[in-house]
Structures are given as C-alpha cells and as structure tokens.
C-alpha cells in the first residue's frame, strides 16, 4: 500500500472556518505552523479528507493548497525545531 505524503496550507478571513479547518486537519496530520499541516495518508484517507475539505472551504474567499511530496523529497526534507512526521501506525504508550 503506497502512502501519500502531503503538505496542506490554507488561509481564510473567517475565524470560524479557520478553526474548523484546523480541527479537521488535526484528525489527519500534524500541525507545523498556524495554517500548515503535514500528513501521511492512504489513498482512501486522502479521498475522505478531500471530500471534507471541499465541503468546508469557501471557494470565493479562501485559499487552500495540498502539495504532494514524492518519496525522495520527503527523505531530503530539512527541518529545524521539529521532528519528521511520526508513523501513525506505531504504537503509543501514555
């Protein structure tokens, strides 16, 4: 099963929509900046997220982009201040 690696960036003048977008995206990936998320998803999960984004975003007022990173670009990503995306299927202990 190939995974998709994506970066999602958005902006909206509407406070409520901004909060709802953040809440939605927290369910799929990790927050990098106020309006930037990173996610590693299966195709089905991406289809699911895409449907929700389409329903939520206002095409007149908002901007949103999803950048798909090829595997070699993921490997070359240079980071400061945070670690790479956690593998979601790894077990957690709290």
């Amino acid at each position, binding site marked *: *099963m190939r995974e998709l690696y994506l970066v999602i960036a958005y902006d909206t003048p509407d406070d409520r929509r901004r909060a709802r977008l953040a*809440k*939605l995206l*927290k*369910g*799929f*990936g990790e927050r990098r900046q106020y309006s930037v998320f990173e996610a590693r*998803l*299966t195709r089905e*999960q991406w289809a*699911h997220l895409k449907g929700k984004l389409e329903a939520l975003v206002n095409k007149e007022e908002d901007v949103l982009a999803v950048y798909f990173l090829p595997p070699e670009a993921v490997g070359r990503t240079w980071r400061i201040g945070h670690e790479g995306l956690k*593998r*979601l*299927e*790894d*077990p*957690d*202990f*709290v």
Partner: protein
Amino acid sequence: MAEGGGGVGVVYVLENEAYLSKEGGTLKVSRRAGREVLLQKPLIAVEEIVILGNAVVTPALLKHCAQEGVGIHYLSPTGTYYAGLTRTPSKNAPARVAQFKAYLEPTWKLALAQRFVLGKIRNGLVFLRRNGAEGWERLKEALLEAERAQDEEALRGAEGRAADLYFRAFAELLPEEFAFGERSRRPPRDPANSLLSLAYTLLAKECESALLVAGLDPYVGYLHEVRYGRPSLALDLMEEFRSVLADSVVLSLLNNRRVTLEDFDDSEGFPRLRKEAWPKFLRAWEGRLNERIQHPLLGKRLAYREILLAQARILVKHLLGELPRYEPFAVR
C-alpha cells in the same frame, strides 16, 4: 485490525487517571485532574486502545469506536482482561454457521482440536531446539502421541505431557534467578510465570480480534471446552503461537536483562510486574507482533499480527470446505 497490509495503530494507556476523549478527528488522552494533554493522535490511525488503569472514556469516543470497529480493552494490573468493546460479528455469517456445524460433529471437532494441539507441540519443539534447550527431543514422542490420538482424552493427555516437558525445558533457558519448577497461574507464583501470563492475555486478545475480523465467533472452540464468557476459539488459535510469540518475548526480555527481579512487586503475595516496567514489556510485545516473516502456506512476508489474521482466514476456508484440513502456522 487492519484489512490487508499496513500496521495497526495501538494506543496503550498506562496512566491510571487518564481521560480519553474525542476532539474533532483526534483521540485526546489527558490526565484527569488538570488539563495536561498526554497524547493527541488522529483517530484514523487508531485501531485498538488498550487500557491498563482506570481511564475514563467519553461517550463520544465510545460511539466512534463502536461505529468504526475500534477495539477498547480494559486489562487489570496483572494483565487479566476484564472488559472491552470488540467489533460486532462481521457479515460473514456462513463462516459462523460452518463453525457451529463443526463443533456439533464429534469427529470434525476432534480433528480440529488435534490440529491445534499438533501446531502447538510442533512449534514448541522448534522453539526449544532453536534456542538450544536440552530435552527438546522428548517432545517428538508427545507429538507422535497426539497424532495417533483417537479421542479427546488421549489428545489432552498428549497435550498435557508435552506442556510439562516443554515448560521444564523452557525454564532451563531462563537466567538462574528466574528459573521455575513448573508453569503456574491464577496467580502465577514466580516472576517468569507472571510475565508469561501477561503475554498470554495479550495474545488471546489478538487472537480474539483476528477471529472476529475473519467472521468467526471467538467463544465457540474445539479444543477448549465452551464455557460461559470463555473465548475458547481464541484460546484454540493461540496454541500454535504461544511459543513463537509470547514465550519468545518473555525469554528475550529476561535473558537480555531488560526485565530484572527489581521490576516485580511482591506486596500482594505473588509477583506482579511494576507499573513502571509495563512500557518495556509492551514495547517488546509490539515489536514482536510487527516483525515480518515468511508465511509458509501463503508464500508472503507478513507481520505476525497479520499472520494471526491469515490463520483465522485459513480456518474459515477449512470450515467452508475449501481446504481439506486446517493448517496451523508452522515456524521453521
């Protein structure tokens, strides 16, 4: 449990006063008093929640888990399973009808019980041999005895003798301070037995979810008698995996001195793994389940957790008449 490839997201909650809730699409684990967030994780990646303390689960999270088939399992500090939310029986009703039919037919029931015993003894024998245990050859005799068994009594006799020989040889592999005379349970009387019991509880839980995913009823088994509240088919299926999964994790934790006598607490009159040592144990357990190995029958490399599901599916195929007999998973 995931269909097809990919891992399974398991969250183990060891914090005693944890509060588990659904926030948007995430699972949030916080300390009950105060608002300290211990973990926030996308729910799409959570397939099992294992709780070892008195965590509170909110109704919204419970509803999500029930709808999406996410398992919630409460274990006591000694590792006994006492409550849980498992998925409802799957749509594969023909599998369950066949399962009950086999249960009601004495010769079929015996043949299945025998397959599980043979799988257990054979894998136990290989495990002992590979670890250089003395006396592994003596299990060959018990294996022959189980193969020739004509009734349940003879089969159980062979199984009992094999188990006795097996644990005597297994105890010899442990560091001196952990060696034990015999397998004991309810309660386990020494630290090594206590770890074995924990591992068997976790293994039984894995087998139970594999059977449910495959469409079978974990409570109607062939080797283990049907009793109220006893997942006897899960206990049947785990037989062939006891040595390769549970015993091997215990052996390596003790022999590598990753778990030592200081990790046990004797205050209840029997040894219990201290709460602080649980993560070490669970990490080793999860590591083993995610290890990939060639499946002899399917010819594919699979994680052990997927092999459990594959075996449940092989059992379904046999019950539906697509395979002449159930083939237990055989380690090399």
